[in-house]
């Protein structure tokens, strides 16, 4: 394990791998060539030996032809001995066609097992004719007649010696050649891979993030072109990096701005919450401040009413006895009715003030107990109209269309009344010229089980920008004329609290429709 770890840096080295590959290939090729050379040489040696043997045998056969024909044993023995004197010849024998041995000669060597045997036929000359045939003009024929055989055994032990010598020489030369070529290869690879290493160094430097680095490699070869390409790539990456940095900066700025905007919005909400808290406190304080004198007024009204009720019979007696008299510049007969009516109104309006204040207080403190009351929408509309009776303008025509069979709605009549008052007041303020029509209608949407109240005017309408901010608190187009910017905000809150929805739609120049939709029934 340690070894492989130690070797791994080398094995990952391109130069080392190439060197290993080259030297391995050269070793293989050298071995192959050496083997081929040895085999060729040995084969050549054997072939030469056989050729030499065949040549010797053929010469002997040629020379032995006449002695064999003449059955001259001495001559044949001489010939055999002469041939046997050749170093590679182990034995020579000459025999007739019947296999009878006529002459034989052996060298002193022992006959090895792998001796090469050679046999050549001794033939009479084929192109020679008999005298009769010659005289008759016969054509010569190539038919050779075998008259005997020459057998040679050749010593092939030289091949083994030669093989050993050749193998040793080939190994020595091959090893020397391999070492020399390997050294040469190393030098060549060193030169060749120097550029490669330079390229790799440049790439690694660029890869490590130093995009300003460049591969300092000249030349128009593949490596040079690769270096140029990598330099171009690095330049391009550098450019991209700069662009990225710029974009990042822009993004950060944008995010900062977004955060600031969000912060502003949050702050606005916080301020608004704070305002609402303050408003609640203000409302509570106001309610307290108003309730006390209002209670006094209501008490006074009651007292006036009671006193007046007690005083009327007495005054009636006076009137009957003394005739007409004036109270506060008003004749008693008229004052009698007006005072009773006004005292009742004092009480009624005082109670109304109390309810309003209670409502504001409930809003301020989040009270919702009144939401479970039964609410008749038409009565609520009438109550709202009665409140606004004194503020009705002559130029504005108000028409009402109250639906029948409208079920009761669970909720606070006073709050819904307040909503309607807000909507009607807004409608009445939609006429800059002063003249216009406001239509108020109620109906029951049985399909959806909803009670709908609509306030429609044919005023100037609401612009798109204003429409988007209508339900924002303290947003008002009439701040300069006393608008608080809380009417629609509170109205929407009340309607939503009742489980309904407040919808506003407007066409600029044609008018606005405000629709209050409340769920019917659901009263405990």
């Amino acid at each position, binding site marked *: 394990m340690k070894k492989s770890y130690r070797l791994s840096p080398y094995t990952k080295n391109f130069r080392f791998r190439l060197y290993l590959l080259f030297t391995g290939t050269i070793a293989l090729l050298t071995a192959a060539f050496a083997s081929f050379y040895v085999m060729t040489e040995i084969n050549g040696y054997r072939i030469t030996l056989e050729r030499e043997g065949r040549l010797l045998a053929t010469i002997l056969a040629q020379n032995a032809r006449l002695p064999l024909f*003449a059955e001259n044993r001495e001559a044949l023995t001489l010939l055999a001995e002469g041939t046997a004197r050749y170093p590679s010849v182990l034995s020579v024998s000459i025999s007739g066609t019947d296999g009878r041995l006529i002459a034989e000669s052996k060298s002193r060597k022992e006959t090895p097992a792998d001796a090469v045997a050679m046999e050549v036929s001794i033939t009479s000359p084929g192109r020679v004719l008999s005298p009769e045939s010659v005289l008759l003009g016969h054509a010569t024929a190539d038919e050779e007649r075998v008259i005997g055989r020459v057998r040679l055994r050749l010593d092939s032990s030289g091949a083994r010696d030669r093989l050993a010598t050749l193998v040793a020489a080939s190994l020595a030369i091959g090893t020397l050649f391999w070492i020399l070529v390997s050294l040469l290869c190393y030098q060549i690879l060193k030169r060749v891979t120097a550029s490669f290493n330079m390229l790799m160094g440049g790439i690694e430097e660029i890869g490590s993030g130093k995009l300003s680095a460049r591969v300092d490699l000249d030349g128009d070869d593949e490596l040079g072109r690769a270096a140029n390409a990598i330099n171009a790539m690095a330049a391009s990456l550098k450019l991209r990096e700069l662009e990225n940095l710029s974009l990042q900066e822009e993004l950060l700025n944008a995010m900062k701005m977004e955060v600031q905007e969000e912060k502003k919005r949050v702050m606005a909400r916080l301020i608004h919450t704070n305002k609402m808290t303050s408003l609640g406190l203000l409302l509570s304080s106001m309610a307290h401040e108003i309730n006390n004198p209002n209670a006094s007024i209501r008490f006074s009204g009651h007292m006036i009413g009671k006193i007046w009720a007690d005083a009327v019979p007495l005054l009636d007696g006076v009137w009957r006895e003394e005739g007409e008299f004036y109270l506060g510049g008003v004749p008693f007969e008229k004052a009698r009715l007006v005072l009773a009516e006004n005292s009742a109104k004092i009480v009624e309006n005082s109670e109304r003030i109390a309810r309003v204040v209670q409502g504001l207080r409930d809003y301020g403190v989040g009270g919702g107990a009144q939401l479970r009351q039964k609410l008749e929408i038409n009565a609520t509309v009438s109550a709202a109209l009665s409140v606004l009776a004194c503020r009705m303008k002559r130029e504005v025509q108000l028409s009402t269309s109250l639906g029948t069979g409208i079920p009761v709605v669970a909720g606070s009549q006073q709050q819904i009344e307040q909503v309607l008052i807000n909507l009607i007041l807004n409608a009445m303020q939609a006429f800059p010229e002063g003249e216009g029509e406001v239509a108020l209608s109620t109906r029951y949407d049985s399909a959806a089980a909803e009670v709908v109240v609509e306030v429609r005017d044919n005023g100037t309408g609401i612009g798109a920008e204003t429409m988007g901010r209508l339900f924002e608190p303290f947003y008002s187009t009439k701040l300069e004329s006393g608008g608080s910017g809380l009417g629609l905000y509170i109205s929407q809150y009340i309607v939503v609290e009742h489980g309904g929805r407040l919808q506003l739609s407007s066409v600029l120049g044609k008018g606005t429709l405000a629709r209050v939709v409340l769920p019917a029934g659901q009263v405990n």
Partner: protein
Amino acid sequence: MQFLMILLGLLLLSPAQTQAYDVLVLQSLHEKGYDEAVRGFKRECRAGMRTLVLSDFAEADVTRIAREEKPRLIVAVGDRALELAQKQNIAPVLYMMALNPGRSRSVSGVGMLLDPARYLSVFDSLGAKRVGVIYDPARSGAYLKSAEAAAKRGSIQLVGREVHAAKETPAVLESLRGRVDAIWMLPDMTAVSPASTEAYFLFSQSERVPVVTFAEIYLTMGGAVALAIDRFDIGRQLGKMAQRLLEGTLIEEIPPQYPRTALTKANDKVVRRLKGNLGAGAW
């Protein structure tokens, strides 16, 4: 098969199948040399003739043919034809292209061996005084006697060596080493066999003596001079003899003849090489 051949032979040889003629040509076999000689014969002899090639028949009864067809002359071409022709004694026989014709009373012709004097003149011109010659007495004894007779008339000494088997030739040649100036190679079947032929030329090479032979083919093997027969001319020569016979000359009056024409060829390279070793008369 043999029966059918005999039947066919009898049919072809029957007198009814043939017309009258003067010369019956018996040819041993279809052979280029025989054909050449027969052409030469026919050129010279204009008599009517019938030619029978004996190898075409399994058996030919020449005596019956001669008796029935009564040719005035039988021309035997080759040894076998001569042998068959000699079995009848109805018509005289002229032979040609026969290597061993022998001697007979009613037989004459042209032999295949040239006049020894021609060879001797060649040896003489080569400057050779001692001429070695190997022969089988059974085959060439008579020829050698006439050669010796002719040699005695000149200054050439024939050193003759007898052989009775072909295998003796190399050893006999060895016995001539240092004793001869030239070798005369006779067309003797015993002395010259295919196996022993090269011994002559090896001897010639080692002893530096020329070999005078009887056919041009031996010049390529190392022979110096060849005196060859002209087969066409032998036919013509025999044609003249036949003409004389047909004109009334008795066969006993016409002795056998040597071929009148000899075709002399020399291997100039061999002759040139051996020149220094030959006498003043060398070519």
